[in-house]
């Protein structure tokens, strides 16, 4: 039976299990506070390829393989791959999926891709259409920089509110086969646009979307922030995180003691990343390393993972449009120890 709570939240009653998580990151991310938890840390972010785009899709494919391997799945046991990335026409996801003989859904939710793929995957597992689903996403500093901002050779300065696109990929295996970590509910976010136009201040643009989705989750499910060990947003950065906390306070939810943000966790302030990390690979690599491991080990019993996405394009930015943003929230519960 499919169950919906409130207007936006799906409850997964039939058992959606999170079998494994895999993560690959670049050198800078490896030097950050979570460096030890990643499966692979690249020495060179070209990874023996001749373009950053090729390196990114290699990370994507390797994350998929690694997650499948950790879940002890053969290729023919993968019923579906759901993935997306930041590059035009989501070439990292679809090109990487060439190597897998499996049905494929390409999605785009900007940096919310990890939550979006997990949410869709959970629906399909809960409904009984699939046994094993691979969910993945990636981003690469250098491919994103030249698509969204400037050529690397231009050497432009980064503004104080800018964030650093994470070079990284994360993949997860969802399954109806029982294991410790499982997904119990999820909230589909709405597009929220408060009129922020500065592409170098995406944290502020996305914070209202995060607050809206988290508030919707609490109200739909009747839960409270205290029910969670951690409420973790995707890539709001330092500024966006504070804005989201304030907005939630105004809505009557005190999340401050439990709230963190993958963009704030992945880098240290000494790494000169300004407001923190961003990009699909930010929340994907943090979720599929540090957070998944903590859930498996029982350090966290219940977390709310809310990846955020800024749905801008280089064209819309140049035309002076504001930044529509989205956030999807996934409730992940750990092994009962």
């Amino acid at each position: 039976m499919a169950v919906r709570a409130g207007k936006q939240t799906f409850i997964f009653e039939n058992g959606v299990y999170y079998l494994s998580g895999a993560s690959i990151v670049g050198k800078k991310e490896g030097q950050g506070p979570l460096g030890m938890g990643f499966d692979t840390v690249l020495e060179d972010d070209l990874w023996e390829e001749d373009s950053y785009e090729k390196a990114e899709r290699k990370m994507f494919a390797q994350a998929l393989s690694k997650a499948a391997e950790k879940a002890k799945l053969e290729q023919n046991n993968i019923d579906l791959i759901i993935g997306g990335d930041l590059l035009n026409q989501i070439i990292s996801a679809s090109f990487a999926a060439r190597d897998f003989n499996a049905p494929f859904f390409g999605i785009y939710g900007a940096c919310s891709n990890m939550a979006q793929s997990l949410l869709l995957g959970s629906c399909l597992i809960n409904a009984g259409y699939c046994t094993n689903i691979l969910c993945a996403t990636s981003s690469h500093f250098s491919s994103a920089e030249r698509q969204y901002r400037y050529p690397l050779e231009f050497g432009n300065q980064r503004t104080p509110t800018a964030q650093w696109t994470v070079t990284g990929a994360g993949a997860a295996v969802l399954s109806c086969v029982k294991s410790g970590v499982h997904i119990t509910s999820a909230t589909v976010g709405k597009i929220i646009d408060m009129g922020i136009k500065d592409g170098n201040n995406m944290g502020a643009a996305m914070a209202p979307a995060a607050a809206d989705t988290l508030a919707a989750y609490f109200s739909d499910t009747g839960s409270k922030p205290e029910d969670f060990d951690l409420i973790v947003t995707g890539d709001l950065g330092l500024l966006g995180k504070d804005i989201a906390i304030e907005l939630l306070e105004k809505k009557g939810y005190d999340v401050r003691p439990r709230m963190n943000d993958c963009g704030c966790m992945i880098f240290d302030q000494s790494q000169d990343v300004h407001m923190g990390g961003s990009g699909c690979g930010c929340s994907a690599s943090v979720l599929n390393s540090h957070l998944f491991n903590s859930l498996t080990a029982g350090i966290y019993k219940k977390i709310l993972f809310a990846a955020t996405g800024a749905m801008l394009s280089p064209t819309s930015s140049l035309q002076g449009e504001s930044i529509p943003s989205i956030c999807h929230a996934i409730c992940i519960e750990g092994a009962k120890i």
Partner: protein
Amino acid sequence: MIWMFIKVFIVGGLICVIGQILMDKTNITPARVLVGFVTLGAILTGLGIYEPLVKFAGSGATVPLLGFGYTLAKGAIEAVERDGFLGVFTGGLTATSAGIAAAILFGFLNAVVFSSKTKN
């Protein structure tokens, strides 16, 4: 001699400070700051304001991007005086041709020799 260095440093530095403030405190993109500076340099030269600054601070005024606008406008004005109306179109590029050709040549050579690198 020393006094000239000081003048160049102060005027050139102030122009750069304006650019830095525009980038840090407004959401004007770096590309717009660049284009804005060139245009402003040309306008100020046309109004006769920039020439005295160049005489005062030398390369402090000609090396920043405003100086490129200054060369464009000055070239056009001189060409009009020499060749008449056609100088409006030929003067600017003639005066800046050395800089433009050098930028293309060295840009090309750099692209041949080096490949792009990730920032650290």
